[in-house]
C-alpha cells in the first residue's frame, strides 16, 4: 500500500510538471506528425501497399516519438540534482521507477490517442474495425515500450551521451515487442480478429511485458545507487 502510494506520488509529480509546461508533450506530438509526413515522402502512400504496411508505419512512429519522450524521463531529474534527492528519500527505487513508468505510460498513451486518428486520416487507414483488440495490443505494446524506455533512461541518465545511447540501446531491445505489435496491428486494420499465429504474438507481448517489468523492478536499485 505504502509502496503504491509512493509510486503514485512520484507519477503525480511527473504528470503535474509535464502538464504545467506541456513542452515534452507538444514536442513529441509534433515530432510524431513530422515523422508521419517524412514517411509519406519515402513511401508513396497512395499505393495499395500502404495498407499492408500501416501497422509497421504506425509503430515506427510510436517508437520514435516514445524514445524521445522516455529519454526525458530520468533526464528531467538531472536539473538541480533532483535525482539525488529522490534517491536518498525513503521511497524505494522500485517505487520511484514504477511511478515514473506510470507517468510515461499515461503520456505516451495520450500521444498515441492523438496520433491514431491523424494516422487514420492521412494514411486513409481504417483503425476502427477491431477496437477492442486494437486497444489491447496498444496497451500491451506501449507498456513494453515504456518499461524498456524508462529503464534505459535510468541506466543512461548519467552518461554524457544520453541522447545518443538511449535510442541505440532501446530500439534493438524493443524489436520483439515492436514486431508483435506491427504484425497484429496490420492484421487488425485489415479487420481480422487475431487467431492462431496471431494469438501467439499476443502471448509474446504479454510475456515480454511481464519479464521486463519484473527484471526492471529488480534491477533498478543497482542502477540508481552507484
Amino acid at each position: 500500500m505504502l509502496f503504491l502510494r509512493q509510486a503514485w506520488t512520484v507519477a503525480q509529480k511527473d504528470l503535474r510538471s509535464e502538464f504545467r509546461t506541456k513542452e515534452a508533450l507538444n514536442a513529441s506530438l509534433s515530432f510524431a506528425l513530422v515523422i508521419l509526413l517524412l514517411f509519406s515522402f519515402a513511401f508513396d502512400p497512395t499505393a495499395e501497399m500502404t495498407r499492408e504496411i500501416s501497422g509497421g508505419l504506425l509503430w515506427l512512429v510510436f517508437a520514435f516519438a516514445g524514445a524521445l519522450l522516455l529519454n526525458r524521463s530520468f533526464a528531467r531529474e538531472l536539473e538541480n540534482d533532483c535525482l539525488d534527492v529522490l534517491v536518498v528519500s525513503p521511497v524505494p527505487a522500485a517505487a520511484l521507477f514504477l511511478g515514473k513508468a506510470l507517468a510515461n505510460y499515461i503520456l505516451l498513451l495520450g500521444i498515441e490517442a492523438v496520433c491514431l486518428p491523424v494516422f487514420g486520416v492521412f494514411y486513409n487507414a481504417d483503425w476502427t474495425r477491431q477496437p477492442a483488440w486494437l486497444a489491447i495490443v496498444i496497451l500491451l505494446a506501449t507498456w513494453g515500450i515504456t518499461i524498456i524506455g524508462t529503464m534505459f533512461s535510468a541506466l543512461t541518465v548519467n552518461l554524457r551521451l544520453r541522447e545518443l545511447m538511449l535510442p541505440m540501446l532501446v530500439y534493438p531491445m524493443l524489436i520483439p515487442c515492436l514486431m508483435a505489435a506491427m504484425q497484429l496491428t496490420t492484421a487488425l486494420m485489415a479487420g481480422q480478429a487475431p487467431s492462431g499465429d496471431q494469438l501467439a504474438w499476443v502471448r509474446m507481448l504479454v510475456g515480454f511485458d511481464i519479464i521486463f517489468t519484473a527484471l526492471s523492478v529488480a534491477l533498478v536499485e543497482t542502477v540508481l545507487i552507484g
Partner: protein
Amino acid sequence: MTALSVENVWKYYGDFPALRGISFEARQGACVALLGRNGAGKTTLLRILAGLSRPTRGSVRVFGRDCLDAEVRRQTGLIGHGIGIYDELSAYENLRLFAALYGVKDPRRAAMEWLERTGLERVRDGLVREFSRGMRQRLAVARAFLHRPSLLLLDEPFTALDDRAIALLQGLLKESLAGGATVVMSTHQLREALELATHVALIVKGRLAHAGERTAEMLEDPGWLYRTYGEA
C-alpha cells in the same frame, strides 16, 4: 550516543582509490566539519553517508542501522551541490511533494510552515523557475529541513550564498543542533564552517589525516589545520 560510525571505508573509481580506509565516529549532536583540498574525497564520502553510492569496502552505520535502510533515510536531510527542487512546480507544491515522500504527517501544513520559516510565504504559488538564486537556496534549505531530520549532510552549503542566506542557514543549523541533530558538512569556507563545528575531520588524498574536536586556535587561524596535517 554515536549517531554515525564509519568503519574502514574504501571507495574505488575504477582502479583509483578515492577513499582509503576512512574510519570515524560522530556522536549525536555533533557538528563535523569535513575539510580537505580539491579532490580529497569529501563529496565521495558524503555521498556514501547519504546512501547515494555504496562503499567498495567497509561499512557505514547510522543510528546503528545500515544507511540504505528506509528508516534511516527518513531521518536524513541532504543539501548537495544542486538545490534538488523542481523548476516546474511552485514552491508550495515542491515542499508538499517532499513532505509526502518523507511521510510527514500533514504535508500541507508542514509545507506552509516551512515556507513561512524561510520567508517565502509571499511567493508560495510562484514557479521555482522564476525564483532568484537566493530564493531557490532558501527553498532547498526548507526542503532539507522539513521532515526534521536527525542527520544532516551538507556538501559545500555556503558556496555562492550571500550574507543573508548564510545567516539563515546558520540559524537553522544551530537550532537543529540544539535539538539533538547531527551535522556533517564539507566546505572550503573555513571561517563559516568552523564557527559552527564542534568537531573537525581533515581528509588528505582519501585518507583521514586528522579527526578531533574543534579547538579555539583553529577558529583564530583557519589555515593552521592544513599547515599542520595537510601534507601527510
